[in-house]
């Protein structure tokens, strides 16, 4: 007799993920899937996949999914949620997607207090396109379009989305987690649970930002990438809950 100690959540498909070794996306996918199952809403979830590294996310989640244009996830999720209010709708986005080209869409989804859940993966780089500077790239961080490192005089400073969205009355839950240690993985899962519970309970717009490692485009091995998360990313992007407001 063998005992199953861990298995793939049913809310994920069997499609092999394409993410690079050491990337944080796969961990977050699993956390979302586990959360949907534990909240017993996996069969009424609809996911929105972005343009970027997670462009294939629609094939990894077992629920129905929509993949749309770069940055427009919150708008697409709005159309889905308003048409199917009983669905649990989540938008999964990277930093270029959410904090650059999709800035208007995320801000106004929060302004309208759209009852959706947003998962925001912040790895401070454009991954899929090969390592260009992101809106969240750190000062001094080298990118293919910032070969000498991000210079605030030329390229401005990194943007902190949780802190910014916290100013908007319509945002209800904003938290930033990481997936560099088991402790932080579990903490991030708690944030995700709250963000989905808020939607189930009609509280409204909730977003979980996850600091994620990108060994490939940071040109680091996995250990170095985790080190970068702790020593460089976290000082700019502190972890924790930035807003937790109940229903109006």
């Amino acid at each position, binding site marked *: 007799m063998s005992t199953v100690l861990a298995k793939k959540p049913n809310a994920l498909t069997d499609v092999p993920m394409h993410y690079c070794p050491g990337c944080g996306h796969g961990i977050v996918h699993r956390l979302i899937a586990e959360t949907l199952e534990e909240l017993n809403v996996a069969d009424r979830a609809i996911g929105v996949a972005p343009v970027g590294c997670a462009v294939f996310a629609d094939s990894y989640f*077992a629920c129905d*999914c929509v993949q749309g244009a770069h940055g427009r996830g919150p708008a697409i999720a709005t159309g889905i949620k308003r048409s199917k209010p009983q669905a649990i709708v989540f938008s999964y986005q990277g930093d270029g997607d959410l904090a650059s080209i999709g800035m208007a869409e995320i801000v*106004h989804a929060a302004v309208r207090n759209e009852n959706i859940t947003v998962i925001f993966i912040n790895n401070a780089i454009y991954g899929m396109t090969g390592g260009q500077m992101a809106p969240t790239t750190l000062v001094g961080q080298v990118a293919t379009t910032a070969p000498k490192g991000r210079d605030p005089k030329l390229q401005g400073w990194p943007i902190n989305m949780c802190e910014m969205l916290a100013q908007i009355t319509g945002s209800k839950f904003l938290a930033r987690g990481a997936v560099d240690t088991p402790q932080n993985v579990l903490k991030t899962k708690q944030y995700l649970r709250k963000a989905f519970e808020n939607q189930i309970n009609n509280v409204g717009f909730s977003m979980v930002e996850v600091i994620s490692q990108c060994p490939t485009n940071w040109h680091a091995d996995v250990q170095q990438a985790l080190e970068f998360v702790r020593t460089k990313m976290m000082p700019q992007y502190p972890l924790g809950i930035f807003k937790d407001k109940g229903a109006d």
Partner: protein
Amino acid sequence: MTEKALRKGNEALAEGAIRAGVRFFAGYPITPQNEVPEYMSAHIADEGGAFVQAESELAAINMVYGAAATGTRAMTSSSSPGISLKQEGITYLASADLPCLIVNVMRGGPGLGSIAGAQGDYFQATRGGGNGDYHVIVLAPNSVEELGNFPKLAFDLAEKYRMPAMILADGILGQMMESMSFNFDPVDPNKLGKFDWAVDIHKNGRAKNNVFSYKGDNLIADVVERAKRYGLVEQTEQRFEERNCEDADVILVAYGLSSRACLEAVNHAKEQGLKLGLFRPITLWPFPSKRLAELAQKTKAILVVEQSLGQLVQDVKLSVGDKVPVGLNAYPSGGQPDGAQILTAAKSLLTGKKEGLFSLKDHAAGFTYNCTRDLKLGVQGDRKGETK
């Protein structure tokens, strides 16, 4: 069916859309189509639908993408510069095979142009506008009655062929009032068939549905497969109206409001013993080329009348080839067609004169083309009272 009632074009369109079963609308303010979102915001919720004033035209069309993915009859409306912004979403909708309705109540262009009614977006509507190989079905109403009844037709076609449909209306048509009635009973969306491709709450036993635009290695097969549907649309959905074309000396070709001005020319001509016919494309894509090619063999000349500077005329020339001379009487960027000028142009075409006929070649050579009737009305060069 309804009793005749006096309605403003944009309001007839909005009411017609709700009657056609539209239950999701997203839009952004722009003149001259503001009555559409205003009407929707007041009425769609009564039918259980949702209205969102989006932060931009981009967001609005992507909201439509999300709503259409659920199988909901979803639409947006805008005017020319706003439709330019929506092109991203339109090509994504086409690539994801999503039926929906986009309404363009055209104004003068290019750029911010003017708020005067125009027909300058013919190329954008019929040639794509967004990136890649795709088409949308384009319907061109020429009355408030058609404006109110075309949303139903648009959705029936869009859903049949799984592609976006567009209503291309003139700014003036949206703003004017006419007596009209709806020629169909209100559609109950709950009684429409469910689509097997739509995303929804995931039922046990049903395979997972994905609506997606990125096709990767399957792109070629995907585009070629979709083209079969385009071919079917081109074969079976060419719509038009013709009047007195069988024995006409000159056939006028015009869509939308221009076709109404052509009727004035047809009547003037009759008084002078000249036989003018009118061929009005109702579908701009697919363009009704089959019938027009037949008619080209029965007439002496074709005169295209458009509120743009040489757009519709290209489809006419593609349809008729060298069978018959094709002239252009153009009223670009807010110019309004005039029956007397149309008649002058038609006579020029028969007599080899140039008056009333526009060509880039003659224009570059210094021939003065007169299309300035609207100057007297102060439409051009008068910035007072203009709004975005």
